[in-house]
């Protein structure tokens, strides 16, 4: 791997010398995500292929941390953890078999367990970054408490590669719950949101929730299915199930359901354009098109949004933001991510200028103008 690393550093140096943009790529399973940053948009773009930089470097189950090279397959990481009864608690999406750990961290996306366990960035302990001068920098480490210097590793999570290529990451892992059970209740959207509000204040072992109604297009207040996953010790799950009620799904069905949300293979996600709205979880129904709700109300997926501008204005007032998560490149005429407040935008822009002065890494992938 030493040779591969040298080669990758050299590629960055060459690109920088020529001021040639660099497209960082892992398994290429999340190419759809973010502002268009493809070789057909910027024909001169170099591709920095991290999928060749593979391997788990350190994994000691009792340390609750795994360190691996960016190109390591997410499936390999999760299989390795599973063998020791552990997991990535943020349940990252795999949009394809080629998904890599580096791509997972760079995109910052979390899955169904996020509201209970925390988001991807909560679990990032350390990272090594290949910067625009071709140098590999190390931040954080493998220990859970570390306040030496700024928390750069967490800043890199979700940065979509605009500061450089993640080479290695150290991620805190969690033991798998002793028991899990998925319950289903029949509710309207408003009823589901009201239940989330009530459960938030109670010590229930809810590890994932999702509400969806198949006939939203035809009915005004459709009754849908509210899925609730409980995870924890046996008494905790039993207790929770008693309090929540509903019917239990069998293990295989439940696993398939949550995977279909995590990886977006659920029929809802087949929509041509898909919006991801993040709002304070207690926000009432948005009534902006067919909806699938996750994360106790905090994450809402919308298909067929009539007026994106109106949606963005509304969620901004509510304290949230809307992302055009999947789209046809041909008909995009608006920013993919919600535009930032000027103050935050200025700091972000200065960070990019400071940390990638020539602007070679994934230009305009996270922000439309830099």
């Amino acid at each position: 791997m030493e040779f591969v690393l040298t080669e990758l550093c050299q590629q960055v140096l060459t690109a920088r010398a020529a001021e040639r943009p660099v497209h960082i790529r892992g398994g290429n399973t999340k190419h759809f995500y973010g502002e268009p940053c493809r070789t057909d948009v910027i024909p001169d773009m170099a591709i920095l292929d991290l999928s060749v930089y593979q391997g788990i470097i350190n994994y000691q189950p009792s340390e609750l941390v795994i360190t691996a090279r960016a190109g390591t397959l997410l499936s390999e990481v999760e299989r390795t953890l599973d063998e020791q009864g552990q997991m990535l608690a943020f349940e990252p999406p795999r949009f394809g078999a080629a998904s890599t750990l580096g791509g997972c961290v760079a995109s910052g996306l979390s899955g169904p367990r996020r509201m209970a366990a925390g988001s991807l960035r909560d679990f990032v302990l350390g990272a090594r970054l290949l910067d625009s001068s071709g140098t590999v920098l190390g931040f954080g480490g493998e220990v859970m408490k570390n306040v030496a210097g700024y928390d750069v590793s967490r800043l890199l999570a979700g940065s979509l590669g605009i500061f450089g290529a993640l080479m290695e990451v150290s991620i805190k892992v969690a033991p798998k719950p002793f028991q899990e059970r998925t319950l289903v209740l029949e509710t309207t959207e408003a009823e589901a949101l009201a239940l989330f509000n009530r459960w938030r204040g109670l010590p229930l072992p809810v590890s994932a929730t999702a509400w969806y109604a198949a006939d939203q297009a035809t009915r005004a207040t459709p009754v849908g299915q509210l899925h609730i996953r409980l995870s924890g010790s046996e008494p905790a799950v039993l207790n929770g199930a008693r309090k929540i009620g509903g019917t239990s799904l069998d293990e295989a069905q439940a696993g398939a359901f949550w995977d279909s949300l995590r990886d977006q293979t659920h029929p809802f996600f087949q929509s041509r354009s898909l919006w991801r709205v993040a709002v304070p979880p207690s926000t009432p129904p948005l009534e902006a098109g067919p909806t699938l709700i996750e994360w106790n109300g905090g994450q809402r997926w919308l298909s067929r949004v009539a007026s994106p501008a109106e949606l963005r204005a509304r969620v901004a007032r509510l304290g949230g933001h809307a992302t055009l998560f999947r789209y046809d490149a041909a008909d995009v005429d608006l920013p993919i991510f919600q535009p930032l407040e000027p103050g935050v935008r200025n700091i972000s822009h200065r960070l990019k200028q400071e940390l990638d002065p020539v602007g070679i890494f994934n230009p305009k992938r996270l922000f439309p103008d830099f």
Partner: protein
Amino acid sequence: MNDTTMSPVLNAAPDFAGLIDRLKGRVPAHCILSKTEDTRPYECDGLSLYRSLPPVVILPENEEQVVAVLQACKAFNIPVVARGAGTGLSGGAMPHAQGVLVGLAKLNQIKKIDLDTATAVVQPGVRNLAISEAAAPYGLYYAPDPSSQIACSIGGNIAENSGGVHCLKYGLTVHNVLKVRVVTIDGDIVELGSEAPDSPGLDLLAAFIGSEGMLGLVTEVTVKLIPSPACARVIMASFDSVESASLAVTNVIAAGIIPAGLEMMDKRAVHMVEPFVKAGYDLDAAAILLCESDGTEEEVEDEIARMQAVFEHAGATRLQVSTSEAERLLFWAGRKNAFPAAGRVSPDYYCMDGTIPRRNLGQVLGAIERMEVEYGLRCANVFHAGDGNLHPLIMFDSNKPDEVDRAEKFGAAILELCVEVGGTVTGEHGVGIEKINQMCVQFGRDELDFFLALKRAFDPYHLLNPEKVIPTLARCAEYGKMHVHGGQIRFPELPRF
């Protein structure tokens, strides 16, 4: 990155009179202190060895005044050091000799506790414990609980990314703060983070938390609250060797258990605190573990049984489970009072704050024991064993110059060992001014330059808490044998760590 590792040139004679004049009508006169007798109490934080008399102290009463102060300081090119409750342990709030100290203690309102969203909106001067007290009627609390929580402020917690004995299960400040309102050095107000699960763009909140007052001043904080557990019990387990206690820690984690708290004390620490708190600690043990479980009655019963089995298997020589809340608190009292207890048995002590991979606990403890002989000083060890955060307390007498020197060398050797085994020089106390030289050991020049570049993006003029945390090239070059002082801490009666 632009290569500017040098601090910008500050005024040799800052125009404080001009600054105060500029603030007339914007900040009330009673909020501005400039007489020595008024500013003296602000000359240091919890680490009193580092002192610097602030020429001017400003105590704003609202956000508008914070904006006015920062705008004026920028206009006059005067450094700004922010201060919360002043309980910090690394000199992070030590004033700048040519700067203004901005105390945020008057911003102490709890603005909202919201049951539906399980959040609280508070001003930065609110004490950590006050948040949980205000949330208690709703059955909620704020999880991070640094031992100084009766005094420390949430603003200071954000500056240091504070932890606490429960952070193994419930996370650090960074995991429990949803949003901050920040005034930049330009006087702009920005909000980082969100009550939604995330924000668009970069995760600037993650970079801001733990930034030790170098990126902006916080005026409002939104924190996550969680349901108070119905029940909590703690196991006190004795071991006849540090190695078997360390093994027990490893095994409990390997068994898939995340205890609410998992702390270790070595024999010297136990002997130091037992006469002080009379918690019934086992004086024959080589090490004691305190392991807490919380949740519903049934969950706790289930988990405690699992923990006991692991400890028995690891060779515990004595096991005791708290049977009442009073007993639980008594078991914890010894651990939380290790610091004041150290003050009773030794004239001075130097507290370290390294973190190491958990599997190296036994090895590092053994090394520290050998160092006691080498440096001729006693060291009591208390640890957040669950997360590998060590607090060795080196005991010495500052009236004996030779002992001070040896204590410093001993401390430096421990920190270097922490870095060597893959850990860090500070787990939760911050770098501040105290550990700025050790940053040269832990990081290379390229990483330190990256930190400086990050700072410039927030504070292009280097006016916010300058000359702390990130050493310049010159400073690292000068850092050789001379290690920094540490240890003399104010408020010795306050529970710590």
